[in-house]
């Protein structure tokens, strides 16, 4: 189908009019006289491009800014800024041992994940290093992905447990408890020693067995199936 542009100019099938400022498909390529604008806006929505948003009132603000919203306070940012980067940036203070983690896991996690982290269907298995060689998950679907055999970053484990677990009370664990349960899970997966103590510095140093297995998406469309 040929999408109708705002001014009535047809845009060819499968083609998108280039946005004048390089942002997004512009369905309304050219803005008509402003007396048409209300009807056009109703039919198409206002075409917005970065720095090039137009409405019937004319040009966008010279700054490209609409002065909407309000500045965030540092306290607001700090309250939500919990994401841990893969290099360990933003890991909080605190520490936990494998033994402490066993206690946390037993009381907060085992109901859904099993006392040894073996999983209670349909809840996922967390523990298991097999198969240790070859990373054969693509070849055979029989292998269950676990923290030990598949997760590429230990920081992910800390971040995920802290924000989303346990399912019925997410965000309820203290940082020490998250360090501890992370330690227990890594130890159960033979990634760290059973007498290990985990804190920000130690977690940063953990290299997961599958770390080097991950590659960027190389699909690009076109005739080749990848």
């Amino acid at each position, binding site marked *: *189908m040929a*999408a109708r542009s705002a001014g009535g100019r047809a845009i060819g*099938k*499968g083609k*998108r009019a280039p946005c004048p400022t390089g*942002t*997004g498909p512009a369905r309304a390529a050219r803005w008509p006289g402003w007396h048409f604008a209300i009807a056009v806006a109703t039919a*198409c*929505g*206002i075409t*917005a*491009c*970065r*720095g090039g*948003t137009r*409405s019937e009132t004319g040009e*966008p603000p010279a700054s490209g*800014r*609409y002065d909407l*919203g*309000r*500045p*965030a306070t540092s306290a*607001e*940012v700090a309250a*939500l*800024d919990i*994401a841990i*980067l*893969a*290099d360990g940036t933003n890991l909080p203070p605190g520490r936990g041992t494998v033994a402490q983690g066993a206690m946390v896991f037993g009381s907060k996690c085992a109901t859904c994940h099993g006392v040894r982290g073996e999983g209670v269907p*349909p*809840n996922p298995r967390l523990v298991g290093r097999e198969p240790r060689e070859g*990373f054969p*998950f*693509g*070849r*055979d*679907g029989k292998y269950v*992905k676990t*923290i030990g055999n*598949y*997760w590429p*970053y230990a*920081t992910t484990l800390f*971040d995920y447990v802290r*924000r*989303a677990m346990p*399912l019925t009370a*997410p965000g309820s664990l203290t940082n020490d408890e998250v360090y501890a349960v992370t330690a227990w899970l890594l130890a159960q997966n033979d990634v760290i020693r059973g007498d290990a103590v985990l804190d920000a510095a130690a977690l940063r140093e953990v290299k997961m067995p599958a770390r080097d*297995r*991950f*590659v*960027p*998406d*190389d699909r690009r*469309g076109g*005739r080749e*199936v*990848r």
Partner: protein
Amino acid sequence: MSARHDQHGGENVAGDEAADAGVSGDRHTGPTSPVERGLTRRDLLAGAAGAVGSALVARVVPAGAQGKRPAAAGATSVPAASQGAAPLPVTEVVPTVADVLPDPTKAPGLPTSAHGARSPFVAPVRTPTGMLAGSSLTPLQDLAGTITPSDLHFERHHAGVPIIDPAKHTLLIHGLVERPMVFTLDDLKRFPYVSRVHFVECAGNGRAAFRDPKNETLTPQRVAGLSANSEWIGVPLAVLFNEVGVRPAATWFLAEGGDAAVMTRSIPVAKAHDDALIAWAQNGEPLRPAQGYPMRLLLPGWEGNANVKWIRRIELGTAPWMTRWETSVYTDPLANGTARQFSFEMDARSVITSPAHPRVITPGWRNVSGLAWSGRGVITRVEISTDGGRSWVDALLHPPVLPKAYTRFSIPWQWDGRETLLLSRATDETGYVQPTRERIVAVRGAGTDYHTNHIVGWRVASDGRVYFHGET
């Protein structure tokens, strides 16, 4: 007690693997509780409350009773009113088959209603599992055209659907920006907006059909129902990024949801400058809670999980965060011992939605009809084979054919009553042709099953029964 607790007891959980595969019962036969009936048409017309309880038909809920359990039959009171008097204080009318008259031209129909219920002869349903980390599937076989009714849009969430007061929800944008800012829903709606039609598709869509191609009882809902297509209204993310002054060094952003999963995904900033939106409306109304009310990220053509719902925070940075949802799941292990990561774009797919299992058809003319879409742009061609792949014909693509959106296709077909196999194959604007299952297994391996999109079809037996065919 909230509805959620009523339904789930707050205890049930489900595995993400199962939910992404759409593992659940197929279409339920109807609502979980029988429609409770209130007053008869005759009662309404006559205003005779005393007649309640005899021949009960349409469920009528009086004003003020919305959202509550319908009153037991006979308990609903409607003020007596003679014909032609003031309107009855009725807000909801849910018709049943008992409202069918021998001749609907010889007696008035039902009164006006606050919401338009479906005909009692039409009952499309999703496939709820009743679980907190669950999914429900779009009933593709029951739909026409391309827009998915919002109440039938598939659901996929990882810690339940939050019910959010928009007055207490904000979007924080911070990190590598000149001006960390907080936006309310009202703020977002004051920015210039766009309206775009796009599909949303879970990365696990089609897993059941890929894993179990021999399962002849799969339906379109089970084969591809972790997808849906809507008109989305929202502010381009580029406009917001301009507002906060994203620094040139920023190459990735983290999108974080305000649900109990506190869902997080890392997204390249380039997507914001392409076509990403913060959507606040869908199909003519605010987002439904299961689709992210009051605001969600929409990344046209990209795997559903990255389209973070209930979005509350965006952080600009220089590298992906490697969240759980982009490492342990939604990655594609390959036969060569690697795992493909950040497989955002959904490859072209098509599925015939009619005829399909469990339909039984008769010889003669009918439409072979279905849906096709590509995360890389416009569908340029859908071919249909009615002879198991020996020959292919181009299907009609029904306008509008939009980029990264469902495209409806059909051909008229005359079935001669002999067993045959119906297949469809989509091509998108990049020249990509939907592959067979065999081809995907050859290039990726048999053990990988996210982002699959293989050709599927339907075997029509000589008795008219239609069965899923996934071994292509």
